[in-house]
Every structure is written in structure tokens, then in C-alpha cells.
């Protein structure tokens, strides 16, 4: 190469990637792998402390204290089933939001087309359902505290609140992320070129959902 101009001919194409995937997507997958170990450690601790609490209240059976006070079983499976349903539906809304952004320019004929193609609606719906899940969790925590289980009561309280609290914090981050996307969508309408941005949020959101399925099964359903 004798001069800069000759070299410059070859200097472009910096957005080429080895796999053809967006860098952020691979980074997020690595992050999710790491998160699996994080929730794995929390869930393993919960399970290894299952049935080891010296005093109640307990998750699945009533307990009478030495003073004669009676505490009901703490976990309320019907209520949590409802919140689980809400969270799973949020994943559906997330898929529709991504779909709406990808097919932004598809002609919309019927009312159904317009509803399905409304990205703001589905982004807002996902965030709202996530928020509803967090409200369920706030209600659940408040109710449990009133029933006599605080974070320092026993091993069950410590490991339960920490595990579900960590999951709730992840949902909260997701809601913030979705709100930011909704904000951008309202401001300048997300285009098919922005689909990766929505896709990344969706990947995170579905992961947080999958973790909840594991928690709901292992902590609530299995006695």
C-alpha cells in the first residue's frame, strides 16, 4: 500500500460480523447464561433449605407456635396462578409487539390488522401486564408479612423473599426497558430497522418469564 487512499478502499465494511448476528444479541445471550447461574444459586438455596426452618410459618402446612398461636400455610396458589397467567400473557403481548414493528409497512386493511399492527398498544400491554405482575407480588408480600412471615422470620422467609424479590427486580427492569421502547415508539414510530432493539427486549422478557415458570413450579406447586 503506497498511500492512504489506496488503503481506504478496503477500509469499510466494519459492520460485518462473523456470525451475521447483531453483537448485542450475542452479548445478551451471554448475559442470560450468566443469569441462569444467578437464579440457579437462588433456587438451589431455597430447595436445600426447604423443610429446614426451625420455626413457622411454613409454605405448605399450617403451624402452631409454642405459644399456641396458629399460622396458616403461607403460599396462596390460586392468587399466584393468576399472576403467573398474567406474566405468561405478557410474553404473548411481547411477541405481538415485535411482530408489529417487523411488519410496520404491511398494508393494514381490517380493524384486526390495525390492532395486531399497533406496536405501541402491544408494548404498552406488555409493560402493563408486567406491572400487574409486580402489583400481585406486592400484594403477596404484604399479605405474607401480615400472616407473620417476614424476611428474617425463618429460613423459608429469607430464601423465599430473596428469590422472588430478585425475580421481581428483573421484571421491574424489564418494565423500565419496555417503557423506554414505548416512549421511543410514540416519539418517532419504531421501524423494521429497529426490530433488533425490540427483539433484545423480548429475549430478556421471555427469559424472565421462563425463570418464573421454574420458580412457580419448584416453589409453589411442588409441596
Amino acid at each position, binding site marked *: 500500500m503506497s498511500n492512504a487512499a489506496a488503503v481506504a478502499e478496503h477500509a469499510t465494511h466494519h459492520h460485518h460480523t462473523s456470525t451475521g448476528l447483531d453483537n448485542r444479541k*450475542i452479548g445478551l445471550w451471554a448475559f442470560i447464561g450468566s443469569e441462569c447461574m444467578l437464579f440457579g444459586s437462588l433456587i438451589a438455596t431455597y430447595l436445600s433449605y426447604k423443610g429446614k426452618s426451625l420455626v413457622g410459618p411454613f409454605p405448605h402446612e399450617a403451624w402452631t407456635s409454642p405459644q399456641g398461636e396458629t399460622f396458616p400455610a403461607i403460599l396462596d396458589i390460586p392468587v399466584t396462578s393468576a399472576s403467573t397467567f398474567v406474566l405468561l400473557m405478557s410474553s404473548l403481548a411481547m411477541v405481538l409487539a415485535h411482530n408489529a414493528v417487523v411488519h410496520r409497512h404491511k398494508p393494514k386493511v381490517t380493524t384486526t390488522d390495525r390492532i395486531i399492527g399497533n406496536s405501541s398498544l402491544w408494548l404498552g400491554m406488555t409493560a402493563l401486564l408486567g406491572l400487574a405482575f409486580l402489583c400481585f407480588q406486592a400484594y403477596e408480600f404484604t399479605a405474607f408479612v401480615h400472616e407473620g412471615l417476614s424476611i428474617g422470620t425463618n429460613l423459608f*422467609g429469607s430464601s423465599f423473599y430473596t428469590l422472588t424479590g430478585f425475580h421481581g427486580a428483573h421484571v421491574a427492569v424489564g418494565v423500565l426497558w419496555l417503557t423506554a421502547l414505548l416512549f421511543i415508539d410514540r416519539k418517532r414510530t419504531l421501524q423494521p430497522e429497529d426490530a433488533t432493539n425490540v427483539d433484545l427486549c423480548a429475549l430478556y422478557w421471555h427469559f424472565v418469564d421462563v425463570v418464573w415458570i421454574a420458580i412457580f413450579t419448584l416453589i409453589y406447586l411442588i409441596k
Partner: protein
Amino acid sequence: MATTAATAPAIHATPVSKKGGVMSWLTTTDHKKIAVLYLYTALFFFIFGGLEAVIIRAQLMLPNGELVSAELYNQLMTMHGTTMIFLAVMPLSAVFFNFLIPLQIGARDVAFPRLNAFSYWVYLLGGIFITVPIFFMVAPDGGWFAYAPLTTNQFSPGVNIDFWVLGIQILGLSSLAAAFNFITTVINMRAPGMNMMRMPMFTWMAFVTQFLIALAFPAITIALVFLQFDRFFGTTFYDITAGADPLLWQHLFWIFGHPEVYILILPAFGLISEVIPTNARKPLFGYPVMVYSGILIAFLGFGVWAHHMFAVGMGPVADTVFGLMTMLIAIPTGVKIFNWIATLWGGNLRLNTAMLFAIGLPALFTIGGISGVMHSSPPAVMQQTDSYFIVAHFHYVLFGGSMMGIFAGLYHYFPKMFGRMLNERLGKWHFWLNFIAMNLTFFPMHYSGMLGMPRRIYTYDAQQGWETFNLLSSLGAFLLAIATAVFVVNFFWSKRNGALAPNDPWGAPTIEWSIPSPVPEYNFAKLPTITSRYPMWDLPSKDPAGVGTRAGRESGVVMETETFTAAELGIPMPLPSIKPLLAAFSIVVLLSGMFFLSNDSKMLALVLMIGGGIATFGFIVSWLSSPLEEHH
């Protein structure tokens, strides 16, 4: 523009980027400048941790030493371990991750340049957070492993452990962010033709290390969260009176802690796998097996954590399984050692300083490796555990292994980083002093340990047969300090006065040597096309007949002897940004706010945490919404 650039000399004494000054460092997103920041910071902490060790050895030089109190000794011992592992050796490896990974795979930068800067700033601030307390005699004092329940409020009431818990959380954040970045970089940023089995061995070992970091650090994060909650919010994770398992911490800690050992050693293995073939002038023996053995070490590394816990009485089944798994790890490690020897065998050896350190690694690491295999047998380790024999073992693998590899890497890559050669005469002095002092310090510890001297004691009585060995160890430690001083002098002298380095001072085979030293900001003027594992050895210029190999003729690798500016070449470069630093600062404020939760100043804690949280969110939003690079 082209004509002025074309007359630029092939060898540079000054960095190509003209922009200097403090702001250029605070806002840099260039992986090479970030590597230099890591280098200075980590060397500072290496010297700091070394001085702590010198005080420890001065205390133990003679029986009934009274230089420091028992309390201060505990702090020094804890901080020596914590500093060397988290603030010196890991970041010294990060120097090479940052500097070499993009250069070795033929990339212009890492996948996320600003996240890379963020990792560095979090590391620096976390390092300061955990180091400053020792000046006020309130440094962490629970050992680098901080076993709970010892570290719960009941047994460690002061603020010492709070500093450790929060400091390690902060440092973990830095390592995790860097791991995601490098995993993405290696998977996605390789030059055309650079398939996985053509990647240089350092990049391979660094890649494996990132998976270890990404998968091991969450376990300690959770262990620390539990401890933090126990200390701050009265949870019962480590409260034995509430029925807690006294081994919970040990399990979670060592699920992190054992992979951490490989996080410390694999990058050093990678570095000497670059230095040895270059200076033996032979391809690395058994390249694929070197790759597989590195992966196998990492994989098995997750299944051996409980060999740190043989003394707690886990029962014969667990002891046997973990003992066998541990012995198994000796196989891939042994394979690596034999492959380095086979690479040396019949080679045309050039014994420069880098090569001496690189040969020092297998020699010394093997001594530590063999005592490691002894520890894999539960009955044997019952005699050795908690004694100085263990201290001897892990210093042979960490000092004799990791640090030897890192020094080899520093001597080998200094010219590429700074454009000048390190002085060979001082280098040889450094190596031989270091080698002798290292053995003088740690070899006698095998004996004092076998004679029953326990680890972690701050003083000991005479007449137990330990005096001579302790005296030797202490003299060795003082000599190590002198050896390190020689290195520091060499470093700063050579940086100003060393001989100017050409592109490829060693005749090395990999593509980072095809570009000028120091490396221009854009790395490669023309991204190379890779057609073999050793592109530089295929070039016509390396061939007496001047034709090179077929792979060389087909490749796009050329010796780039001219440097331009990125603008002249039309290469978009990442813009400098202060936001990673600001985001790092606010997230550290947020985390350190938790420190006050346990100290009856809850308002201050809330102000710091909420303020830090809002600032973090704000800076991250503004970071993400500003463009990464300018387009020419």
C-alpha cells in the same frame, strides 16, 4: 493528505493518536488505551499487595514477632489475598484480554467499546473502595474466602466485612461486564477466514476464561447477597441458631472459587503458548489438543469445588467423587505441560527474558500442580489442610504459574504496546532474582507446613522447628520485593529510552505482529484475510526464496509499515465518551450506599442509593442514545 502520510517513518516513537491529556484517558473507548489503564492500575495493586506480603513476612521472620497486632495481621492477610486475586492477577490478565483479543482476531475494537471502558472504571473504583479501609485499620479481616458464619454480624460486628462484601460485588460487576463483551468479541468480530481453529492460543484461553467468569461469578454474587442481607436486614441464611447450614457459604463460595483458580491460570497458559512457539521458532505442538484441554480444564473446574472442603466431614461418597474429579483435572493440565515441552523439543531456542519466564511457568507450576494432586486425596489433605503446605501449593501455581505467564506476556508484548523494547539485561536480572526469590520464599513453606505450622497465624513460639524455614521465606520475600523493583525500573526506563520496536521484533507468527508498534488507533488499515494458523510465517518476506507458502500468497496479511489517521483511511472509530465513567461512578455510589444501611445512618444510605440509582439510569440512557462512532 495521502502524500504526507506516506512519508511517515515505519518506526514510531510517539503514539499515533495525537490527542493526549487527562481527558483523553477519562473518555477513551480504545481497547488499547483501556489495556494500558488496566496495566498501570493492576501493577499499582500488585505492588501494594506485595508490600502487604512483605509486612506479613517481616512479622513472621522470627518467632514471637511483634511488628503488627493480631488484628492488623488479619487485615493484611485478607487484603493481600484479595488484592492479589481481584485487583492484581485478574486485571493483569484483563490487560491482555483488552489489548490482544481484538488484535489477534483481526478486529478494530471489542464488540462494545464503551462497556469496556465502563468495566475498567468500575474495577478502579471498586479497587479503591476495598483498599482504602486498611489505612484506617478497618480493612476486611475474614480471609479472602470470608467464611460465613464467621463473617456474620455475630462474629464480625465491625464495618470491616461490609467493605469486603460490597467491594467484591462491585469488582464482580466489572468482571461480568467484561466477560459478556469479550465473549461477543470473539464470537462475532473475527476477520474473514479467522475460524475458531485458526485463532491464536491466547485468544482461545481468554475466550474459555470469559465463560468461567460469566458462569462462576453469579454464585459468589448470590453468596454475597445472602451475607449482605444477613448483616443488614437480619435474614437467617447463615444463622446456625435458625437452622441454617454452616456449609452453605462454603459451597456457594467454592463453586465460584475453584473456577476462579482457572480464571487466574488459563490466560497465563495462553500467553506462554504465544511466547514459546515464537521463541522456539516452531508451531505449537498439538494445537487442537491444547484447545480441547483448555476447555476440559474449565469444564471439570466446575465439578471439583468441594475439594476445598474435605476437612468439614462431607462423608466418604462426596469425598471420593470430588477427589477423583480433582485427579482427573491433572490429565488435561499435564497434556498442556507436555505439549509445551514438545514445542521446545528440537526448536531453535532463543532464551530472551520472555522465553525464560515462559519456561519458568511449566517448571514452577508443575511443582504446585503435583502438590495439588496430593491434596486431591482426602486422607492426605487431612494432614496438610490449613497448614503452610497449602500456602506453598497455591503460591507455586499462582506466583509460579499466573505471574510467570503474565511477566512473559509483558516482556513479549511491551514493544507492541509502547513501541519500545524492554531492556534485556535488566529483564534477565529481573527473571533470575524473581526465580530464585520465588523458590526461596515458597519452597521452605512446604517444610514449615509439614512440621505443623498453621496458616493465618500472626505469630508463633520458638522451639517448634519452624524458625529456619520462616527466616528463609522472609528473606525470599524481601528479595522478591527487590526483583519487582528491578522490573518497575526496567518498565519506566524502557518506556522512555528502550530501543525502538519494529512491527515484528520476535519473528512471531500471529497477525498482531503485522501492524506497527505501537498499534495505530484503527489497528488494521486493511482487515486481513486469514488462511492459516500462523499467517506471518507464511509471508514471502519470511521465506528465503521470497515466495512464502501457498497460504501466505492467498492471504490478505501484509506487513503494514505506514501509519495513517483513521480519518485518512475513512475508518469510523468509536467516539470518546465520559458516560461510561459517569455511569460507573454512579453505580458505585449506589452500591456503596448500602454500606450505611448497617451503620445507623439509613437516611444517608437512602440518599446515596436513590441518587446513585437515578444517576446510573440517566447516564445509561444518555450513553445508549448517543452514537457510538463518527462516520467519515
